[in-house]
């Protein structure tokens, strides 16, 4: 079942409806509740390869529902350290738990100063209110 709407404190957000949980020089990335709700139940997650380089504001993968395919946009640049295999095998976990079990990749940041460009939860919620 899809999770109730939420936007946790402590995460950084990107205008293309992605989140980042930063931990030292690493970050875990995923898509927000808004994104999974717009897509509907996910049927496929096309993940990047471990070791791949991803760039801020550029797509690093795809998520697909019956309604649409969407690029997943990187909020930060870095090297992919780990891909969430659970999201690959059972993509509906992204709908059920978008911030926890539905994480998409873990990266090593190449430019921590990019964090300054991201939104905090209030700014992201304000953006959603305008949509």
């Amino acid at each position: 079942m899809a999770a109730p709407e939420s936007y946790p404190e402590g995460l950084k957000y990107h205008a293309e409806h992605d989140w980042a949980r930063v931990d030292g020089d690493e970050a875990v990335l995923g898509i927000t509740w808004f994104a999974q709700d717009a897509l509907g139940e996910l049927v496929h997650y096309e993940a990047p390869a471990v070791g791949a380089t991803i760039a801020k504001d550029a797509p690093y993968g795809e998520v697909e529902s019956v309604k649409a395919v969407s690029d997943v946009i990187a909020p930060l640049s870095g090297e992919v350290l780990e891909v969430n295999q659970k999201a690959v095998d059972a993509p509906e976990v992204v709908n059920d738990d978008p911030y926890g079990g539905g994480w998409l990749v873990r990266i090593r940041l190449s430019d921590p100063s990019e964090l300054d460009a991201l939104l905090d939860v209030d700014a992201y919620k304000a953006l959603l209110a305008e949509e």
Partner: protein
Amino acid sequence: MELIFEKSRPGRRAGTVPSYGLTAPDVPAELRRAHPPRLPEISEPELVRHFTALADRNFGVDTGFYPLGSCTMKHNPRANERAVGIPGFRDLHPHQEEDGAQGALELMWRLQEILAEVAGLPAVSLQPAAGSQGELTGLMLMRAYFADRGEDRDTIVTPDTAHGTNPASVTMAGYKLVKVGTDARGNLDLDDLRAKVDGRTAGLMLTNPSTLGLFDEGIEEVARIFKGAGALMYYDGANLNAVCGLSRPGDMGFDIVHINLHKTFSQPHGGGGPGGGPVAVRDMLEPFLPSPQVVRDGDRFRLDSDRPKSIGKVRGFAGPFGVFVRSYAYIRRYGPGLKEMSEAAVLNANYLLAKLRDAYDVPYDRHCMHEFVLSARNIKRDHGVSALDVAKRLMDFGIHPPTVYFPLVVPEALMIEPTETETKERLDEFVAAMLQIAREAAESPELLHDAPHVRPVVRLDEVKAAKRAIVKYGFEQHPDLAAEMAGTF
């Protein structure tokens, strides 16, 4: 119902093949098939029954009302089927010498002349196999034209109401896409357009009337804007049924037009094809048309391949000839009366709009042309019933649903195109069904959420279809989805 593979039994067969008492040579070992393909082994009677049962589970224009917007589901005349079966058409090899194909070449040339007159543009290629291929051809023509002039242009403008093929064609042709908004009247937003058209613009892709079923009242100004920028205008002919004999795309200012023979000119849709997407162009684009072209030399007709500036070839031979026979036959039944055809299409659509405008939301307060868009947002807001629910419930009335959720600019959209071949009684039946559904939305919405009730299958799990992606029969290893499901109920 079983798949034909499930009905297969070893040793059965329907057809036979002559051997002439000859022995086949051995296929070289490294090229020889190791394991026979598991095609069905079935007798002719069971073969016929299988496909008859499948036909019984399907709905066509022959079955009932089929008001899919922008698809023009009009009657497909049976004389056309007899026509394509004439041996002189049916059994003619496409490599036959030209002197042995004069009838075919003349038919094609005559069709070209007719389409030129309807489109208001003098040069026609019949080669593209479908509307979307016509679009791609049109975009390639634009590329070739500007390359020939040494002009570097890289963008195509489309409205936000565009049919989905338009942006995809733009990408396949190597262009970038710029979207323009629609105003409150349903016309192109001219201010937005002026801001987005410049010297990099190669052209516009537009259908007129639009997918909203509305004729763009500002089309003359739109043409001025594009001509002023030295750009071209491409007409998507999906909605041509509205304007035959009344207004011609060439006169509206368009330079390239594709025509959907399977919409306006009665080629049957066949469950998803075949179709035909010929293009008509202004003289300056003629040299770039695909090769070969059908041309007339006095009283002879021939295929002209001496076309140094041609974009090349988009399909085999000169195009889908059987489709030309049907469309030509259809048009010869009307002659100049194509105008009456379009007038009836527009009258039928406006009648439905008038009868349904109170029960459903109407996004644009204007007369429509051959189709119109309703929004189910009022019943969604008030009763939680969506356009999808309305569509599924219509099936219980023996009516094929209209197009839903398109165009994207209208929420809970229902795009309805009755066509000119429907009687007033059919239209009244549709109105009655739609009004009843609106009442049911208020009184018993669960009837709609669970619809349809009387079809061979009820609502499908489309998520599972995409996740499991079972796209062929797996024979012994085929998953048993029904058994998997049984545990979950």
